[in-house]
């Protein structure tokens, strides 16, 4: 498995921490899925006077790697400010960088993303950029110092799965040595398995688990799917073909069998 800024994760499941019915259910989802990374968004209002510290303590207590994010930031300046706050709160150089370009679709502003990634990298952050599958943008993010890429599967919270499987496959082929994480848009474990079968290194989820009727059970389902997809990718899958290929010889078969 490719490492994430020098950290080898036990598995490729990264879970968001928002929108769960309660912190107790959130903790149960982590336990049942054995997810290795927790992403957490910081509201700048709650960071200023550390109003969110009770919740942050619950996140730290999960005992997994914490990947703070800049969710909800619409400008480079906001994202950079939030990243600094997150580094202080969680004592980590990791930051999942989101610069939202459009409020309704939550598409990333890739221009702001590249700029913010450069600023943060120069400042010592290890940036996980939430981006599209655009190869040119991806290349510029790597040039800006990112060592991980997080393309979307589909718009945030949509549950549509892998919208552009060809683009994602091209991305995997184009950046064979870069850890790639499918971030956003997954709704079902089968989609997570498909992402892993494509050779992606991890998936990041929130809504699909948090908004399930039984979040902890769904988290466990995703963990199993992730493992299945990962095994399939390692096993070098057969190549699909147009014609049937019998798995047992037909010549010599008894006429009336």
């Amino acid at each position: 498995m490719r490492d994430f800024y020098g950290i080898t994760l036990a598995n490729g499941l990264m879970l968001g921490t928002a929108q769960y019915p309660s912190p107790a259910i959130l903790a149960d989802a982590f336990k049942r899925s054995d997810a290795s990374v927790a992403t957490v968004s910081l509201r700048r209002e709650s960071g200023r006077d550390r109003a969110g510290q009770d919740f942050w303590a619950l996140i730290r207590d999960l005992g997994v790697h914490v990947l703070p994010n800049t969710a909800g930031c619409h400008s480079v300046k906001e994202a950079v400010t939030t990243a600094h706050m997150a580094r202080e709160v969680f004592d980590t150089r990791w930051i999942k960088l989101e610069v939202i370009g459009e409020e309704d679709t939550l598409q990333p502003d890739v221009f702001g993303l590249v700029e913010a990634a450069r600023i943060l990298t120069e400042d010592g952050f290890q940036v996980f950029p939430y981006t599209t599958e655009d190869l040119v943008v991806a290349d510029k993010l790597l040039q800006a110092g990112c060592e991980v890429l997080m393309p979307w599967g589909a718009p945030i919270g949509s549950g549509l799965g892998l919208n552009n499987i060809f683009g994602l496959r091209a991305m995997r082929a184009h950046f064979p040595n870069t850890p790639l994480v499918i971030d956003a848009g997954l709704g079902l474990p089968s989609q997570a398995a498909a992402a892993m079968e494509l050779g992606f290194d991890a998936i990041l989820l929130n809504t699909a688990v948090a908004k399930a009727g039984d979040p902890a059970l769904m988290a466990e389902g995703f963990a199993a799917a992730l493992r299945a997809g990962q095994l399939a990718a390692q096993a070098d899958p057969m190549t699909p073909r147009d014609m049937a290929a019998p798995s047992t010889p037909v010549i010599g078969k008894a006429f009336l069998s």
Partner: protein
Amino acid sequence: MKDVTVIGAGVAGLCVARTLLDRGAHVVLVDRHEENGPHACSWWAGGMLAPFCEGESAEEPVVRLGAEAADWWASKTDAVARRGSLVVSPARDSADLARFARRTRAHRAVTAGEITALEPDLGERFAQGLFFESEAHLAPRAALAQLREGVIADGAVFRQEDADPAHHAQRGLTIDCRGYQARTDLSDLRGVKGEMLILSCPDVTLHRPIRMLHPRVPLYIVPRGDGIFMLGATMIEGRAGGHVTARSLLELLSAAYALNPAFGEAEVLEIGVDSRPAFPDNLPRIRRDGQLIRANGLFRHGFLLAPAVARMVADLIFDDATPEVMDETAA
């Protein structure tokens, strides 16, 4: 006769005081403040008595225990209206409505025409909705005031004092109902910030609470009568500072505007912000430590769950019955 001191005169303390009086206790009610007011988070409550709707994200005890709330409040106050509650979603978010329907019960699907018949001022804006006919709502401040008047009239003594429950418990049976103020004594209690508005909009008439589902900004609006509405409420992990944020205001108001553009002309009478006290599973707890009983963690369900929590406190005191929400008994 049992002598009991109840510390905290918000919704939890008042319900406990009322229930203990009804069971024959002699009650002293203590609070830092002389009157009900904005220092208590129940002052800012929506007042929905909607156990089935809450079941969308809350656990089973909230639905079951909340079911006794409307009758209780109706028997103690005249602040209750039993007209059901209505859940709608914008057409593009109909998946959220389907999900809400799957996760809840005691509702029926209503069409645009039925929605208009129930609430003419919603017009034809919503093609489908859910009607929870058995639910109710109340006017929180009127209910708190009447409850307080009632307990005083029935012999409870009120004392204004910034009391320490542990200190009081050395002298006698003490119930700590201070909500988030008890944070320093309850290490697993956290604050969940809520922000709300009170609007005056005489152009709009609504008869029951309306919930509008939206993936990012679920909103409810509760009619208080006379063109007054409560619009709420955000849920943000973290204790509240003193002020509402511009983002929350924008989200709340734009959702109200989507419900009926006439809300664009509403006057904003009050802006409220406070911390809901919650334990990690967002369920209430009763804890006993000798003469000290703490009832806390009512989260966003103060008016909905306080009657049941009060009943359990009384059962514990009078019958030594272990409450189902008790998780700790220290010597």
